[in-house]
């Protein structure tokens, strides 16, 4: 019998929601680390009971927690994130040079093959890795030393490395996304990186062909088709069919192409989901209607999914890491809102139910599909 475990990071702690494979009745455990910001939690694909969590506050800085029993108990691991060498400067909001300074861990991505190996995307943007289950973290400096590093600039949320994709078909290939620098790919295990932003267009950049400076919000890849990537950019929903070398816009008939998360159906690589948000200055759904949009054609043709979602007076946001899917036969889709709701659909988005309604603002949602 399969079951589902949903890991929810919020502004005031972590919550773990569990249900059996029917996904009709949910148990909510938490808050874990009450009062702390939990930017992200994620479990190891090879040992689902091994879960890593990014914990922090502006007062006390960054911590990383690890559970070996599916989230029942936790222990703090190393929280030293030191840049390699002299970190130099990136661009500040006003275009002046600004020193690289560690602020927080936005995203933790456990290895596809080894539960002791985890990648951490941090602000100011850099990629770190542990190979000993969190006892120590070391920067993979090749990314930050990409020749464009001095041109990277923070978005409104900070200069964060928020997306890490480990290629299931090529152990040496990895993708990351940085706001506001763009996407980067390594084909040699992180030694060298290539900016992969051709085709992105950003109104805030005078040079239409700029290699970096794009405010990428999130990127998704389907395991069965690793060369195809889908991106929710600040504005525009994009697709690449060549591992990021070239991007084309697939916003099509979306009511607005601004948004944060994007994800892919577990069994249909051309079925993708976004949550359109009104604009970059009005971070809520258009017309007060919370709608997930689904494309079954890999983009351009989108349908609104509304059954079970509030269709009036709704002004929440859905953040970039706050959408995930399970891998049950009837694919489940999950997302959390800044209003503290976690919505789930057990039928690929056709109908939705709030499985948690009054949590603190949700920062991240990850899903584990468990088999006995």
């Amino acid at each position, binding site marked *: 019998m399969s079951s589902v475990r949903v890991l929810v990071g919020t502004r005031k702690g972590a919550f773990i929601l569990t249900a059996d494979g029917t996904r009709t009745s949910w148990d909510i455990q938490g808050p874990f680390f009450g009062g702390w910001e939990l930017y992200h939690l994620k479990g190891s694909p090879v040992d689902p009971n091994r879960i890593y969590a990014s914990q922090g506050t502006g*007062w006390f800085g960054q911590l990383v927690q690890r559970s070996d029993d599916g989230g029942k108990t936790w222990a703090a691991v190393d929280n030293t994130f030191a840049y390699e060498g002299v970190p130099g400067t990136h661009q500040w909001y006003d275009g002046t040079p600004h020193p690289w300074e560690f602020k927080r861990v936005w995203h933790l991505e456990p290895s596809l093959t080894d539960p002791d190996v985890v990648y951490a995307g941090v602000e100011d943007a850099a990629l770190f890795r542990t190979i000993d289950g969190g006892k120590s973290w070391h920067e993979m400096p090749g990314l930050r030393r990409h020749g464009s590093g001095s041109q990277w600039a923070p978005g409104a949320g900070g200069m964060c490395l928020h997306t890490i994709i480990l290629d299931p078909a090529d152990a040496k290939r990895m993708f990351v996304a940085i706001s506001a620098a763009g996407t980067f790919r390594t084909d040699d295990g992180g030694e060298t990186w290539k900016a992969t932003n051709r085709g992105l267009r950003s109104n805030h950049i005078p040079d239409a062909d700029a290699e970096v400076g794009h405010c990428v919000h999130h990127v998704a890849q389907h395991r069965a088709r690793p060369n195809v990537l889908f991106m929710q950019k600040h504005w525009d929903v994009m697709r690449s069919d060549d591992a990021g070398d070239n991007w084309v816009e697939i916003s099509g008939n979306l009511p607005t192409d601004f948004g944060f998360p994007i994800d892919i159906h577990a069994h249909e690589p051309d079925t993708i989901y976004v949550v359109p948000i009104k604009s970059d200055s009005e971070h809520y759904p258009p017309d007060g209607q919370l709608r997930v949009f689904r494309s079954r054609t890999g983009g351009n043709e989108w349908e609104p999914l509304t059954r079970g979602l509030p269709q009036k007076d709704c002004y929440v946001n859905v953040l970039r890491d706050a959408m995930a899917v399970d891998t049950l036969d009837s694919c489940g889709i999950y997302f959390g809102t800044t209003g503290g709701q976690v919505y789930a659909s057990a039928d690929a988005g056709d109908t939705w139910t709030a499985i948690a309604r009054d949590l603190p603002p949700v920062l991240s949602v990850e899903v584990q599909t468990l088999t006995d």
Partner: protein
Amino acid sequence: MEIRVVLPQHLRTLAQVGSEVTLSVEAPATVRAVLDALEAGYPVLRGTIREHGTLKRRPFLRFFACEEDFSLGPTDTVLPARVLSGDEPFYIVGAIAGG
């Protein structure tokens, strides 16, 4: 000597201690010596009060003892006699947040 240290709530939870901890500190019992002993006794607190590497006080924290502010002075300042005797604690205080 035994130094009493009062921690803010979040750090008590993190270190799994009560409102106060008692630390053995070699003389001279300076601000830095107390913080070193605290982090040695409770490694989970490393990086939460002082930044890794630079050991700079995190900006939203202050250090108080005997109605004096020890946040901004040199960290090799010796603490007051009543802290050294255990009559008064050394306070680590988080900035209040309203709203």
